[in-house]
């Protein structure tokens, strides 16, 4: 269940959640590289190689795990920017959040998220969710063709 070349971009401001997510990935033996961005701006900078990530090499991640409530630029705005830019337009994005609000779900799908997963409080369920996400997005799912 590894995909060494596929990078996971985890956009998460909560350090506990970051740690739990990484633990869940580890428990599921998902060994892909994980890049953590702790706010929306940092995530966009990393994706578009701007700001602190100016000149970064290495292309796009295989999957983006996006929290909604983020400092500076909100998760939904990050998604909007990802879908607005031609290079990231087809990038698989999974919203991974505590919210189950109708409004968030509606907006998330309207803006073109590929999945919407609510983080369970029960860590066992969380690990299972991460396992399924990893299996699906990193193994089963064929990513869109990379542009020249």
């Amino acid at each position, binding site marked *: 269940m590894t995909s060494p070349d596929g990078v996971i971009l985890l956009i998460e401001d909560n350090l*506990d*959640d970051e740690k*739990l997510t990484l633990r869940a990935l580890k428990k599921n033996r998902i060994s892909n590289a994980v890049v953590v961005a702790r706010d929306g701006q940092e995530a966009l900078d990393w994706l578009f190689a701007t700001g602190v990530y100016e000149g970064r090499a290495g292309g796009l991640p295989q999957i983006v795990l996006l929290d909604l*409530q983020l400092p500076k630029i909100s998760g939904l705005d990050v998604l909007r920017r990802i879908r607005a830019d031609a290079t990231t337009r087809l990038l698989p994005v999974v919203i991974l959040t505590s*919210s*189950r609000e109708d409004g968030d779900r509606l907006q998330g799908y309207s803006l073109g998220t590929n999945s919407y997963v609510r983080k369970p*409080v*029960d*860590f066992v369920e*969380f690990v299972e969710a991460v396992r399924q996400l990893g299996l699906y997005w990193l193994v089963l799912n064929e990513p869109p063709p990379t542009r020249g």
Partner: protein
Amino acid sequence: MRIFETSALVIALGILSIVAVIDARTTDALVVTLRWVEHTHRVIEVIEDVGTSMGAARRARRAFLVTGDVETLTEYATAIAATDARLDEVRDLVRDRAPETERAGHLGVAVAARIALMDADIAARKSGLSLLTDPAAMQRSSDAAARVDSIVGAMLHDERQLLRERESASEGRVAATRNLLTVGAALGFAILIGAFLGLRHENARRRASEAELGERREALRQANAFLDSVIENLPTMLFIKEASELRFTRVNRAAERLLGVAREDLLGKNDFDLFPTEQAEFFQAKDRSALDGHAVVDVPEEPIETKDGRRWLHTMKVPIPGDGGAPGFLLGISEDITERKRAATELRRAKEAAEAASRELESFSYSVAHDLRAPLRGIDGFSLALLEDYQDQLDAEGVDYLHRVRSAAKRMAELIDDLLALSRVTRGNFARERVDVGAVARTVADQLRSADPDRDVALVIPDGLLTSADPRLVRVALENLIGNAWKFSAKKPSTLIELGAHDDAFYVRDHGAGFDMTYASKLFGVFQRLHAVSEFDGTGIGLATVQRIVHRHGGRIWAESKVGEGATFFFTLNEMESKA
């Protein structure tokens, strides 16, 4: 009436005039007749005088013949002269009547003959002859005298005859005249009495009609006073302007009060005398619009400067027809809506505040959902990490504590989820549409069955349970009710859950644990539980949520149960429930 009176007067005057004319003519005729009677009397008198004076002449002649006294001759001459005078008079009187004139001629001849004889006698006496002794002469004298007497007698007879006729005729005329005068007087009386009666009747009628007029005036006065009182006591401002210059001709007390101006200072003035130019122009434009359009103009809101500051009015302007149909006046009725407007403003502010509070609550709910769950995940996740990675360093009690930490975190997550569901029930949109309650129930039951496939639960859900309700809320309600039924009958190896309709209520019936009806009133309160969590899990929010859903539909919810025999929850979704 006037024509009748005039005709009566003309007729009365005519009758009286005719009577007067007839009377005058009759009287004239009577006068003529009486004159003729008198004339005849005179004729008789004069003829008799002729006889008398002839007698006197004869006696004087005889005296002279006997005595020769010269003085007697003087008497004789006087008598002869009188006779001649009388004869002339007779001739004059009867000149108009031929036979009498002729006869008077004969009398004159006879008298002349007689006188001639007497003169001869006298002459003879003077010459000394006495004729008294001459029988022939005496016979001649006697014949002449007889002849005179005969003619006089004949004339007198005729005249007396004439007199009688004339007197008789005059008596007839007098009687006729008297009758006529009587009739005339009677007619005069009759007309006078008629006029008197007519006048008296007319007077009585006039007095009666004056009394009636007085009553009518009084009634009119009272009606006017009543209308005045109505207008004066109207709690809304009322004013009337004349149509040409739009000056106030009438205002009521409410108008004085509202404007803070006494009516003496309002009447005769126009809007420009009383209000700022801009307002006056507005008022008059609306006035003209009502008057020109012959229609009521509704001004829902207009500001007006009063002595006590600006007020807001809702005014209706009504054209009032004058003489000849064109509007003569403008009636205005103004309601002071200042307070209502203030209240509306306050209401709007309150609504805005409530909406702000609602938005705040929404963002609070969002925080609850998002921010409160995140730490719980940490608590659970790291507790599990401890259990997994450091179990060998913990004793049994430590492991138990960590398990308790985890279940407490899980329970708190459920509470948060249920509270959010409860708040969503109240916050969310509400739209009724046709809902098949049975179909929703089947979906819910399928979910329960797939989550708990080992349970042996028979579900009885009839077809055709249709209603008008918000489908999302019906789903939440049935999730809770059927979920409860599922949960509280879990200790039975096999059980039955029924959905149905009774009267206008739906019900969900289970044959599970049931509850003590003593605590039925607590069923629907938030966090109210009738069973220990260890016995049946749950947050105590589900039924509170169902009750809110039912109330949002205007319905009601109640339950019947017996411990150990199951429970039935009834609910309506509409005051006028319709189940097709």
